[in-house]
């Protein structure tokens, strides 16, 4: 096998940005992607947009989104748990990403119908993340980057502050290469359900994984075991509530359910457990994964009536329909008497008032625990509809600690020839919480930095 200057571990957005940048800078690059070609691109293939700072309208983005506002949005979701230097670097660089992406084959489209709230801050990829990934692969190959699919890396051998060897499986054989530089861009560990269960607790066996089954944290664990420094809470993952019928892996965007604000949500004992109308959905969807994860059997049931059916984006699976609450309880296998009681208590606590689906309307229950503080309308107009909810894991927070050059930090000193980009180092910036579209920003910014640094190193 030809010796390449740089090996890139992973085949998602961060890996491809690094590969393209390095190849354009004259390096010879090998991508090792564990997925087969139809599933290449990791979680990046499921994305729809990236969050982009801009001073004035540009491409599909309207108005302006300043560095300061972007940073404040980040502070809000992370509760301050962020590295300001790296965060501001990612934010500032995001404005250069847009033209770079366009020049490298990515097309954008105006914010999708139903996502108007993101039209100012997030630039949507035409065709979504898979078309972005396709464009990057096509370009990378035209630049001479070699891509191996179904080539999972099993071990990265470290000696002092040098990577000296990368081991991987390919076509049934154990292979090794010794490149001059390595970029890790192989995501988090959320697809390793056993690891998830060790970190989170046994209930994690009922979690669904929203994205790729290939991000199993093999390289992450391997390097952390060799003393590489980590950041991010090892027990935490970003989880949202998704349709309980979603596939175990790769269900992606279509399994989300946006009806919670117009519903009541009960657990398997037909009891409510949280204020469904606390805030507008884009600000709350991310807490519901955790809420459902804390319920018995990690399952929730959303119940609405015919008034609300058309108020939210359709989702992939049709709801369970029934003409009475009793029938609905039976179909959802919930205790019928209890469900009826919960619903009539809720209905009795609703007050008259003006309902407004798209803003906080203050239509609140009175004397109910937990309350529903907005959009509280009695559930009384058949047919009734129900969906099951499960926690759907987007990514894990544990990752490599990097500096502003994406350089990985070894036990004693910065590594000389190892860089990291994307989800696998996102914990350096996102200690907790999540800002829609920031994952692709981090991957693009640090992928390009890692590609630049690695290719300069091998020159």
């Amino acid at each position, binding site marked *: 096998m030809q010796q390449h200057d740089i090996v890139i571990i992973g085949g998602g957005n961060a890996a491809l940005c690094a590969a393209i940048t390095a190849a354009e800078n004259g390096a010879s690059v090998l991508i090792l992607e564990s997925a087969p070609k*139809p*599933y290449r691109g990791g979680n990046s*293939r*499921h994305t*729809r947009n990236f969050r982009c700072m801009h001073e004035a309208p540009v491409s599909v983005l309207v108005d302006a989104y300043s560095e300061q506002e972007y940073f404040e949005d980040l502070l809000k979701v992370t509760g301050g748990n962020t590295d300001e230097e790296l965060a501001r670097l990612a934010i500032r660089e995001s404005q250069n990403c847009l033209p770079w992406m366009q020049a490298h084959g990515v*097309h954008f*489209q*105006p914010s*999708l*119908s*139903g996502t108007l709230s993101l039209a100012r801050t997030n630039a949507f*990829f*035409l*065709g*979504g*993340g*898979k*078309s972005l990934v*396709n*464009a990057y692969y*096509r370009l990378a190959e035209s630049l001479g980057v070699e891509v191996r699919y179904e080539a999972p890396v099993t071990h990265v051998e470290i000696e002092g502050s040098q990577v000296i060897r990368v081991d991987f499986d390919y076509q049934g054989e154990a292979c090794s290469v010794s490149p001059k530089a390595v970029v890790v861009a192989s995501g988090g560990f959320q697809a390793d359900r056993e690891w998830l269960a060790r970190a989170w607790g046994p209930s994690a066996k009922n979690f669904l994984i929203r994205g790729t089954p290939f991000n199993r944290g093999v390289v992450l664990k391997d390097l952390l075991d060799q003393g590489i420094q980590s950041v991010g809470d090892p027990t935490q993952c970003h989880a949202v509530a998704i349709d309980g019928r979603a*596939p175990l892996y*790769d269900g*992606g*965007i*279509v399994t989300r359910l946006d009806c919670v604000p117009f519903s009541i949500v009960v657990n398997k004992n037909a009891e409510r457990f949280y204020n469904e109308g606390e805030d507008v959905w884009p600000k709350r969807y991310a807490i519901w994964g955790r809420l459902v994860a804390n319920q018995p059997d990690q399952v929730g049931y959303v119940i609405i009536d015919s008034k609300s059916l*058309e108020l939210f*984006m*359709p*989702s*992939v699976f*049709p709801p369970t329909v029934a003409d009475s609450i009793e029938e609905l309880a039976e179909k959802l296998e919930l205790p019928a008497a209890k469900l009826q009681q919960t619903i009539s208590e809720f209905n009795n606590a609703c007050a008259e008032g003006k309902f407004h689906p798209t803003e906080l309307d203050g239509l609140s229950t009175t004397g109910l625990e937990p309350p529903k503080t907005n959009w509280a309308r009695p559930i009384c107009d058949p047919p009734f509809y129900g969906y099951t909810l499960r926690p759907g894991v987007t990514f894990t927070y544990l990752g490599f600690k990097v500096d502003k050059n994406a350089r990985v930090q070894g036990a004693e000193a910065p590594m000389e020839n190892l860089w990291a980009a994307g989800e696998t180092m996102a914990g350096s910036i996102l200690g907790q919480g999540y800002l829609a579209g920031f994952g692709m920003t981090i991957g693009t910014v640090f992928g390009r930095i890692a590609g630049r640094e690695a290719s300069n190193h091998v020159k």
Partner: protein
Amino acid sequence: MLSESIQEARRQLEICNACRYCEGYCSVFPAVHSRRAFDDVTVTHLANLCHNCRGCYYACQYTEPHEFALNLPAALANVRQQSWQDYTWPISLSRAFHRSGVAIVLATIAGLIVLMLAIHQLGSWQGEGFYGVLSHNAMVSIFLPAFLLPILVIAVSIRKYWRASHAGHTRGAAITETISSAATMNNLAGGHGEGCNFEDEDRYSNTRRWMHQATLYGFLLCFASTSVAILMHYFLNMPAPYPLFSLPKLFGVSGGLLLCAGTAGLAYLKLKADRNLGAASAWGGEMGFVLLLFVVSASGLALYGFGDTAALQALLVIHLGAVFAFFLLMPYTKMMHGFFRLAALLKDRNERLSRST
């Protein structure tokens, strides 16, 4: 059969409606996203709106082996094909020719034989140029019915389709927009102008759009050439043959060249493209149709080039036989897509205009 393919397309459209990532590719997605449910009529309408650019296949994160098994271009192509077949009388003919290239070849051969017999029986052996082979009146008596009858069948089909699709009130603006959309084929531009994903997986290219436009404009020029010639014959008393610098010849030659190049290009692209992203069962019929158009245009050009040699009679038989077959097959071949597409585009414009007001 129809309900099965509609059922499959509906399943996929519901997934797309939850996803929406492909919104900017073409007119289909905004139309999908403005709805929550897809009845049979709507699915058929969306299918006829789709130009099979395939952008939404290569961009889709849910294509096989994913269990959602998205392949919207194929699902819509199957419904579309079925709709042309099912709205056209008699169904048995349309089933046969839509699906089978061999049937089209056989029909063309039959056309040649008819023409040979006609020449044998009615041959005039007087008059100039090709009227020396077959008199003007004999030609008219063969081609007038062979043209008008299919047009009638098509008109009835489209009327049926239009009525069934509850296309709404048509405003002038909708008509101009429809014509401009068909004329520019903006739905084959991919939403960004770089074209569609046809001949080389996910690489964007405008080749198919250009080839299709060459075919369309070539066809229209040939049609114009014939129409002008008819007018000149009857109203100006100027029978064929015409000199090069006459409208029929200028239209005919330029149209023939465009049509020839366009159909050859489309056939070539069709060979390179993945058959499973179209109506796989109709591949042969579609190919047969493109090649028939190619034969029509190539033989027309040959007639122009070699019309005063000994080959005249043979070329005339081939050309007129192919034209004869082409006319008669119009309602039962890919030709129908143009009419259904126009209807679907018009309905789409009607909907957009009423959404925006």
